[in-house]
């Protein structure tokens, strides 16, 4: 995965638990600043090791950590250098989701080694939207669930997200918007 993912994790851990905790994660995994270069690709296993070490340090299960991180990731991207890209992609929940694949296509064009997922709105109503998630990576549904929660935060919406189905390389999420 790209170093940007590692940077986001570091930032979240430092903000929430302090530099010492992040230092312990680094020592556990054996990583250093050279593993935080945004545009550099790293082995997926390394990323998963960092996730596991971070979850352990925070006293969370890996799925719990991934969900927290997914939610944080939206905030990290929007206030960082990539905020303008997120604004360009869409300024409301539905538009952002509809255009997400086009954003990922551009990322893939620039960073050819990027493995990007695909999102498709399969059903929508007044107070809900059902999204299909397609990927070649496994085990990241909690992270995606967190991403949707982060998007609700970004667009100042109240609601809930649940995984309604999960299979090999695909999952469906139901996002329900709370009234008021």
């Amino acid at each position, binding site marked *: 995965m790209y170093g940007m993912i590692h940077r986001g994790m570091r930032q979240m851990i430092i903000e929430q638990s302090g530099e010492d905790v992040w230092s312990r994660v680094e020592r556990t995994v054996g990583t250093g600043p050279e593993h935080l270069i*945004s545009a550099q690709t790293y082995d997926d296993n390394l990323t998963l090791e960092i996730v596991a070490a971070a979850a352990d340090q925070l006293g969370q299960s890996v799925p719990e950590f991934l969900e927290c991180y997914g939610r944080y990731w939206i905030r990290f991207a929007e206030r*960082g250098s*990539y905020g303008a*890209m997120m604004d360009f992609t*869409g300024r409301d929940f539905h538009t952002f989701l509809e*255009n997400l694949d086009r954003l990922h296509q*551009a990322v893939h064009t620039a960073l050819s080694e990027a493995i990007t997922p695909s999102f498709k709105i399969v059903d929508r109503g007044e107070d809900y939207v059902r999204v299909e998630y397609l990927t070649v990576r496994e085990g990241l549904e909690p992270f995606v669930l967190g991403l949707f929660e982060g998007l609700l935060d970004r667009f100042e919406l109240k609601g809930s997200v649940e995984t309604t189905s999960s299979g090999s390389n695909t999952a469906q999420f139901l996002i329900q918007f709370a009234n008021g």
Partner: protein
Amino acid sequence: MQLDISTELLETLFPAFLIVDGTGSIRSVGPSLNRQMPELLPGTKLVDHFVIANKVDSPEFPYWARIGEPLQLKSHDDRVHLCGSMLAVESNYLLAVRHVPPRFSLKTNSLLISDFGPDDPIVPSMLLVGLQQAMIEDSREIALELGRERQRSAEMFDRFSRISGYMAHDFNNLLSIIRLNADRISDAPNSSSRTRRLAQMIAETALRGSEVSSSLMTLSHQRQDSRTRLEPDKLISDNSAFFQTIVGSRIRIEFSLNATGRIVEVSRVGFLNSLINLIVNAREAMPDKGLLYISTAWSAPDSKLLCDHIAIVISDSGHGMTSDVLAKAFEPMYSSKPAGNGMGLASVFEFVNEMGGEVCLESELGKGTLCRICLPEATLPKTMGVSQARPDMFDEGEVNAMPSRIVLVEDEPFALEALKELLESQGHEVAPCASAKEARAALVAAPCHLLLSDVVLGYESGTELAAEACAARPEMQVILMSGYVPEFETLNENWQFIRKPIDPIQLCEMVASALPICANKPEVS
């Protein structure tokens, strides 16, 4: 051929479309234009809102464009640029146009992906430009982080080196005592062969112990041995692109390097880290934009440094410091910045002082900050002055120097006793001193040919003592002893140096070489 396109499809394919009638009045507007230009109301004239950038003369309506040919529109406030073509649709005209962003920067654009058709190539282009800009900003942050990390590593290594050096020094002192006294036992007149054998085992073990301390010395000497002769102008020039990366594009760096060919002998890593620290501080003092000025110049001895030196000046046009902040700027752990660690300027101060230089800061609130580093110019390479025995002098154990008075200074009592006995066994008169204070008294009390002193004498320095003694008596010979290598610049070229644990034979050879063996030995006044 008739083509039926629903409004929904039209809005999807051309979100910025316009439909005008035969009078040039707007009939319908696409959703994107609706959002970008809410003043585009049906019934208003097209030319009231747009300039036709590629107007052509046509005999038919609309008279400024031809059906099927390229059409370029610009809003009067130049915010919206459109291009496409015009189609006749029944009695109206469809302007099938799309946005052409005047600037490709996502940050300064109000356009969204939804403002473009599904396959509009502008979208991936803009996203790529946005991604590129984001990655450039990220790279700057990463370069800074890596620079800080390198500095932290260098500081940690520095501390580790010091600790290693101190441990090596203390360990060598103890080994020296063991070795000297093992030799005393072995050389005692009535010692049995068993005693001599045991003493030899002790001495050899002490020798093996010295190999361990040598490893520590090697580690501690990394910082010392990493001193290299370098040309500040060249180092700054070679790293100018890196420095520009650190400050970013909003800050301009100007260089004025006027010390070409001038050399200093410093730690390259320490020098570079000091520059990086100062440049980072300057950058943080100029959050919007500014000027960073880096200059060098050679200087003769002056009030700043009493030797030829190279002055390196880094100044910025930032917010400057108050007098309170300036007064504490070099203090370790002090920082005026919320996220500062307080080590940047402190490490610069430490580095410059260790290199024998001077550093000063000038700053005024609102008027920027200037940092001047003065480093001694390197002349000839220093030598350790470690003595080599004159091969034609003597056989092992035989010393041909004339008996002389030696002031012996050593704050370890067991070592002092052993050395005194060793030198007296060679026929010398020895004034044993356990401190620099006692040595000063001994040097004044009677004429002395040789000062043999440990470098570290508690809180005092044997090299300073030697410098004082030589100033009073220039013909005085000096041999310094230590388990730790002193700074190069503190050694006089005529002094000799012997490392601990002391080899008694080597010491005797050095004493002999330091003291004249001819009959015309000059009298020491």
